[in-house]
């Protein structure tokens, strides 16, 4: 009991000092529980939508979608509906078709441009409403269902956004060209951002190129009939490759894809949450290590009066546990809050049905367990140290000096090497996706911990070197300027958001860029308003903090740079700061490590992104001869006549269609490889095959294949060898290996054939993309524009030239980097609190010294300046460690990723420079409050604090 009392007392005394630690745990646990809550709630939401849509359905006929090699997908003839309808056990059956791909049928707006959703695809279906009492499907909110060949329904969201009204004649862009339809009705379906175009069944079958076929048949059982009896009755009527399933199976089939996405999303969020939590381990460790060293005399006294080492240890661990519990509970609260806010925001956007936040027992248990475990594990070393404090330490005046044990070096080295080995082994890719990820994760964790242990050894000297006047002075100056500018921007943004949320500005019209429509923003209501106000105030507060700390940092920086030349007093402040951070190298190291982890990952991601960008642009400029690329907007297959029309354009030199499928080598149980097929695959004009050996002889005739280098090595194939390829029609061709393609950017591990041979065996495989070259003697832009104009006749087809493609790739990579770095931001925020925490605690620890310095003439401004320099140095150390490790990981990553994806290492120097400058910002901001607090210390009280 006494131990518990001691632990509680410790917390009460140290509550102020533990505040930031609790906050760090709260953030980590909040993110962990938030990821669970969000994925659970989204899952429940979607299950709700699916089961509502399938509410009246007792059974469903559909094609089997998992096909084995060579198996043809089943076709449902529309005559099957009548057969099923005729069954006694069936009350009703209705057929349904879906257009393959998205954006195939798009209404044209007033400017004759296809009108699409900004946040989702436009899907085309046959109409399936509330028929014969069957619920689900689309809810008819206005007008009537499509009545015939010239009639269409849209969903209400699309009609409102696009300004379409019932009775309008709307021209649609279809794969077969333009067609007019009359808008006869509007429907509603709970899928925000998604547009629906609905035709009646017959029209849809014709438009979707599915005459006489159905994609699904929905069946309602006759009253009093069990669904299983319906299945039994329908089963015998089904053709090959077609199955009938009951409602539960239909529900899970419908939600399967979505649940998979949710679970991936949840796991990604969880991964980033765990990174943040991992970072907080170092902060917790630091806090307890400092608390123990501050309490050495107290602990010594307790030992002197009879407390055992084990009791001391337990009291520290219990204290950690209590702090962990507090942080975890607060974290769960934060997680619920954030999840509820996000959901409220969805709801206020409309379209989403009302959701309830799902807080499962699992979420609560995991969150608490994770929070408790994190705290107690990180407090373990300090607790053991506390347990070893001897009674005489109570009488000793000076705190014991940290000894750099050989154990630390050995442990640190072993852990680092183990970590790097795990990363290396993981990168070798011999352990499957899960194994690789696990190895990489564990390896990274080990490396971080090992470096944290080792960096304590060189933190002192490193800070001495890094903390030279001029570099930190310049960093401080830049940070000051940026904080001033950023502060002004944030305050302005925050105030604007608040004014906007108050509704005082009414509507704001943002002029559309590049000819896009103007966007009109109306003052938000409900959750949106709350969020806007929260964001606005947050920006404002942050801005004020920036504005307060910016000028001081700027003044200090300028003074330091100047004093470095004139020998003024600011150099002394830097000296003092440097000595202070070098004094507790282990603490500096742990603080820096917290920052290092986040920044190493940011650097890694940036290096990978930059390398990917560089590799892709190299592929585009070197390996690909094509000037124009034709793709489906959502990856759909391309219209059959497009290549022909494209090659008919003036100035187009060469056109190649690309198709792909699987081939099997070695009979029924043989191995399956990819097969890539091109038109005119006899020359390196469209794509640079980089033939290592052999020639194209016989490829165009369909008597020979090209084999990619890796596949050739894998199977031991050489030019002139013969190989039997079994195509998906289960026909086998005996082909000669004509050449080996060394350029694997597109072709890794596959066979390359000519389209002629391919189409013979895969008549149903569509064209995936088309490449074309433009003649040298014509104007590139003119031809490129003409090709793009050609695509306007087809929905969902896009033509990109080399430049567009590069731009598109770069936009995609940038967006991904922004997303990942945004998620890593949380780890950085936690690390930021770690820097604040360390500075607060080290100021507390030096109270007496600060009093002395103030007594002998250090001004408040000088004192704040030393604290600021110290924070900047610690951040800079962590940042440079992070960047170094990040670059190493990045290079290893690039080496491990197949060359077909990333072939060369490219270091984003500009990004790294920005990260270094960020270290300055983090330091300046982290020092602000502790420095102010220190400056307020009364010198006399500080001296008396002995």
């Amino acid at each position, binding site marked *: 009991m006494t131990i518990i009392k001691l632990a509680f007392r410790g917390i009460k005394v140290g509550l102020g000092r533990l505040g930031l630690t609790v906050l760090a745990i709260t953030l980590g646990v909040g993110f962990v529980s938030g990821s669970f809550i969000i994925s659970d709630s989204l899952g429940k939401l979607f299950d709700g939508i699916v089961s509502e849509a399938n509410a009246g359905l007792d059974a469903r006929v559909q094609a089997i979608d998992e096909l084995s090699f060579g198996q043809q997908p089943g076709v449902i003839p529309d005559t099957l509906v009548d057969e099923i309808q005729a069954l006694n056990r069936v009350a009703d059956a209705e057929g349904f078709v879906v257009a393959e791909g998205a954006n195939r049928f798009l209404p044209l707006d007033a400017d004759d441009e296809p009108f699409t959703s900004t946040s989702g695809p436009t899907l085309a279906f046959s109409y399936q409403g509330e028929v014969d009492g069957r619920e689900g499907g689309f809810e008819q909110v206005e007008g009537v269902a499509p009545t015939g060949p010239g009639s269409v329904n849209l969903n209400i969201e699309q009609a409102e956004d696009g300004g379409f009204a019932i009775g309008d004649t709307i021209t649609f862009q279809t794969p077969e060209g333009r067609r007019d339809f009359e808008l006869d009705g509007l429907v509603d379906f709970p899928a925000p951002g998604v547009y629906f175009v609905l035709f009646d069944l017959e029209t849809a079958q014709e438009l979707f190129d599915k005459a006489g076929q159905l994609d699904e048949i929905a069946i309602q059982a006759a009253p009093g009939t069990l669904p299983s009896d319906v299945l039994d009755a329908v089963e015998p009527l089904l053709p090959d490759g077609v199955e009938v399933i009951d409602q539960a199976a239909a529900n899970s089939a419908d939600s399967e894809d979505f649940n998979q996405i949710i679970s991936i999303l949840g796991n990604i969020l969880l991964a980033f949450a765990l990174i943040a939590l991992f970072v907080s381990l170092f902060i917790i460790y630091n806090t307890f290590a400092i608390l123990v060293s501050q309490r050495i005399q107290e602990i010594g006294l307790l030992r002197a009066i009879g407390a055992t080492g084990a009791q001391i240890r337990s009291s520290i661990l219990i204290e950690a546990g209590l702090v962990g519990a507090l942080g975890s509970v607060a974290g769960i609260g934060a997680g619920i809050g954030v999840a509820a806010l996000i959901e409220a925001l969805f709801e206020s956007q409309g379209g989403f049905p009302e959701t309830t936040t799902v807080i499962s027992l699992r979420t609560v248990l995991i969150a608490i367990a994770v929070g408790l475990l994190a705290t107690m594990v990180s407090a373990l070393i300090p607790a053991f140290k506390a347990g070893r404090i001897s009674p005489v330490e109570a009488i000793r*005046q*000076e705190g014991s000096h940290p000894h750099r044990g050989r154990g630390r070096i050995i442990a640190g080295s072993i852990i680092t090497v183990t970590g790097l080995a795990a990363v290396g082994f993981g990168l070798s890719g011999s352990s499957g996706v899960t194994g690789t990820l696990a190895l990489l994760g564990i390896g990274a964790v080990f490396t971080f911990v090992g470096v944290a242990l080792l960096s304590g050894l060189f933190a002192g000297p490193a800070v001495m070197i890094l903390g030279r006047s001029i570099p930190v002075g310049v960093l401080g100056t830049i940070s000051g300027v940026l904080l001033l500018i950023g502060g002004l921007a944030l305050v302005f943004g925050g105030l604007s958001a608040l004014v906007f949320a108050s509704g005082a500005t009414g509507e704001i019209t943002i002029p559309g860029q590049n000819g896009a429509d103007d966007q009109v923003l109306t003052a938000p209501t409900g959750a949106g308003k709350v969020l806007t106000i929260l964001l606005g105030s947050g920006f404002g507060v942050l801005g004020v903090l920036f504005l307060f700390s910016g000028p001081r940092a700027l*003044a200090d920086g*300028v*003074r330091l740079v100047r*004093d470095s030349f*004139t*020998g*003024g*007093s*600011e150099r*002394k402040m830097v000296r*003092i700061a440097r*000595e*202070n951070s*070098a*004094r507790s190298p282990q603490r500096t190291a742990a603080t820096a490590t917290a920052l290092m982890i986040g920044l190493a990952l940011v650097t890694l991601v940036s290096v990978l992104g930059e390398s990917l960008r560089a590799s892709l642009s190299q592929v585009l400029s070197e390996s690909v001869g094509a000037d124009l690329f034709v793709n489906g907007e959502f990856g759909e297959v391309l219209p059959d006549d497009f290549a022909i029309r494209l090659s008919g354009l003036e100035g187009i030199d060469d056109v190649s269609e690309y198709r792909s499928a699987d081939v099997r080598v070695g009979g029924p149980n043989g191995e399956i490889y990819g097969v890539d097929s091109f038109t005119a695959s006899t020359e390196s004009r469209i794509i640079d095959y980089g033939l290592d050996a052999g020639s194209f002889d016989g490829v165009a005739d369909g008597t020979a294949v090209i084999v990619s280098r890796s596949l050739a090595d894998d199977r031991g194939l050489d030019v002139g060898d013969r190989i039997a390829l079994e195509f998906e029609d289960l026909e086998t061709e005996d082909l000669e290996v004509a050449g080996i393609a060394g350029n694997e950017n597109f072709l890794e591990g596959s066979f390359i054939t000519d389209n002629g041979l391919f189409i013979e065996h895969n008549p149903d495989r569509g064209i995936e993309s088309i490449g074309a070259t433009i003649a040298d003697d014509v104007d590139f832009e003119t031809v490129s524009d003409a090709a793009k104009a050609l695509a306007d006749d087809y929905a969902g087809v896009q033509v990109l030239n080399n430049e567009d493609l590069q731009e598109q790739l770069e936009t995609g990579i940038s967006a991904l980097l922004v997303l990942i770095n945004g998620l890593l931001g949380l780890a950085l925020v936690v690390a930021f609190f770690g820097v604040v925490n360390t500075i607060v605690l080290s100021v507390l620890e030096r109270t*007496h*010294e600060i009093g*002395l*310095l*103030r*007594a*002998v*003439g*250090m*001004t*408040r*401004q*000088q004192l704040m300046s030393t604290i600021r320099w110290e924070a900047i140095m610690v951040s800079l150390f962590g940042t440079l460690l992070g960047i170094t490790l990040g670059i190493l990981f990045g290079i290893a990553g690039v080496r491990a990723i197949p060359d077909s994806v990333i072939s060369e290492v490219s270091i984003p120097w500009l990004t790294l420079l920005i990260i270094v400058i960020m270290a300055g910002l983090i330091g300046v901001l982290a020092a602000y409050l502790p420095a102010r607090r220190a400056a307020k210390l*009364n*010198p*006399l009280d500080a*001296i008396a604090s*002995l």
Partner: protein
Amino acid sequence: MTDAAPTPPGSPDPSPGWEALDDMTTTAPPVPPTPGSDLSDTIGLAAYCRNASKIYGQGDTEVRALDDVTVGFETGRFTSIMGPSGSGKSTLMQCMAGLDTFTLGQTYVGSIELSSLKDKELTLLRRSKIGFVFQAFNLIPTMSAEENITLPLDLAGATADKQWMDQVVATVGLADRLHHRPNELSGGQQQRVAVARALASRPDIIFGDEPTGNVDSKAGTEILQFMRRAVDEFHQTIVMVTHDPVSASYSDRVLFLADGRIVDEIRNPTEDGVFDKMRHLGD
């Protein structure tokens, strides 16, 4: 002002420098009356306070740590303040040194009145006009002895007067230990470094709060001898709080405090004389 405190050249400090501080000084009478002593022979006062009280709490809980004290410290003299625990001797010293403020009354260091000064001006004053020697933990552990000695000058961005520094260091007898850190020095050596630091900026007055309280008697004697030499040879002014009659006997004058008031004083004290007074302090 023989020794105008240096202001860093081109310092961006917007606040008034030392010269401005002088201008702000309220007019002060050159020599205030000091009770219990005839000051006609004094050369002047380095610091003094008039009708100074330090009051903690209010109403029923009011405690007067110092009660209407008027006292001056002569330039070029070594003064000790003695008194039982709780007599207010440390409070008096701290307030005189600009580390704390009186609740009532005026305090002067040189011709500068302290009660009207803001923190920054007080700090600059301490840096240039006042030296300190505390009982323990006088030194910044991360700095060498030499750095500790020049710390007030470094904080001011001033360069040390080489000749003066050499003289001080030689007198302290630490020339060979200048590059050692405090934890490599003995307690006595540490205190001598602290005294050297107090002397480094040639302050108007040096305050010591039991400077020998934490060292053995041999080291204590060394420190006291050194302080004595600082007064005799360098014409420094030292005020020391102590409860040790032996230490007090090194000074020119001993003031006795009890219950917040100055109750007695001895000039040119001897050990026995101080003992005697101490014994009868309560009478």
